[in-house]
């Protein structure tokens, strides 16, 4: 059995667990715990180790999706999770501009770990107070070449689009490398 992996990262409450849940064929092996910190109580639980989803491609190939823990104190896990990844997705909560700076930091950290392709997904674009994509691109200081797309992590089609864009980037980089 051949296995490959992709990593889904981003700040706390960006929607990483929901993203993996939308496409995983197994119940996501989530390691969620009740949040004890009042400051971070924008939701009831958070991922403390990692999320783990699976997509079987055929009898011989499986894609694993790993979600990084959301809270900063677990960032020691990032480097371990990033090892051997085909690429990564940075999830950003479009409704919480106070997390944009952290998202930039996470993106830079992952780029430093491994020079693999990545895409940035603006999650919660269906919410009324979601930031406009172009404004977010400026706030996140993303280069125009970086793939940045809207996302609603609960919707499978939206998640599929993000995953496909990452795979297209991986393919494009392989073709560039060969030419």
């Amino acid at each position, binding site marked *: 059995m051949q296995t490959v992996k992709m990593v889904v990262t981003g700040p706390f409450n960006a929607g990483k667990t929901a993203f993996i849940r939308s496409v995983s064929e197994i119940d996501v092996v989530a390691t969620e715990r009740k949040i004890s910190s009042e400051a971070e109580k924008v939701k009831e639980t958070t991922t403390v180790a990692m999320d783990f989803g699976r997509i079987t491609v*055929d009898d011989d190939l499986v894609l694993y999706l790993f979600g990084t823990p959301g809270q900063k104190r677990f960032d020691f896990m990032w480097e371990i999770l990033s090892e051997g990844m085909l690429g990564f997705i940075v999830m950003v909560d479009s409704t919480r501009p106070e997390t944009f700076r952290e998202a930039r*930091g996470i993106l*830079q950290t992952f780029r430093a770990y491994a*020079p693999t392709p990545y895409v940035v997904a603006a999650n919660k674009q269906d919410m009324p107070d979601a930031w406009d994509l172009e404004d977010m691109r400026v706030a996140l200081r993303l280069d125009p070449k970086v793939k940045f797309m809207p996302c609603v992590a609960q919707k*499978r089609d939206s998640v599929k689009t993000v995953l496909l864009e990452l795979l297209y980037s991986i*393919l494009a980089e392989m073709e560039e490398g060969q030419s």
Partner: protein
Amino acid sequence: MALKGNLRDFTITQLLNLINMAQKSGLLVIEGPGETAKITFRQGKLAYAQLGQDDGSLASILHTTRKISQSQYQLLRQRTSQMSDKELGLLLINAGYLSQDDILSSLQVHFTEIVRRLFTWVEGFFKFEQDIYPPDGKITVRVDLENLIIEGSRQLREWEQLQEEIPSLDMAMKFTERPGTNLRSVNLSVEEWRVVSYVSPKNSIRMIARAAKMNDLEIRRVIYSLLQAGLVELVRAEGTPVAQPGRQFPTQNKDEQKSLVNKLIGRIRSL
């Protein structure tokens, strides 16, 4: 009983707050990143501070705070090496070189500067032992901690923000490719120019900090302003070993790898 702990669990600001509120007297030893600080308090006020290998002598503090010149410092070291700080202070006052205020304000500046530096320490161990004071010959001061705590909290917030912005000092910088940006027309401070002169994907931020003699906080501040102005962007430092990406594909054959990615694309489309 000594109060012991880890700075991860109990920050410098919380420690100073405790010492201030409980009006504690004694010695706080902090083993930080690469050096050790020893701070003495009397009734909740800063009395004395010493950092790392610094000998903490009055002569060296007066020299650091520019109250005496290099040659005067050398002379004092040769001729007064057997004297205590109190004896030396008295000698300098009686000889009319310095006033008592000069000496006390120098010590205050030096000690508070050491405490300020501690606010950037987020890793390390601390131990507070009651009723331990510096040797008799040392001159102590009485500095209220409130302002230092407020300033420290502010600095800590800034430090946390800067760490989020620039998470690793092993990254390098390069000038952004924005046509029309003329660096000469931008008003930069002396520190910013010093850093700008080293900007190259070959130099990690850590190397630049060392060359420009800046601590972590100072270099992060400068780089943050350069990033905000859109003059530079962070890149992986050239020549640094690339983090071993591990085995990405189960096969090394490029065609098989492409076929594998195409299979993944097909599968995701079919979901």
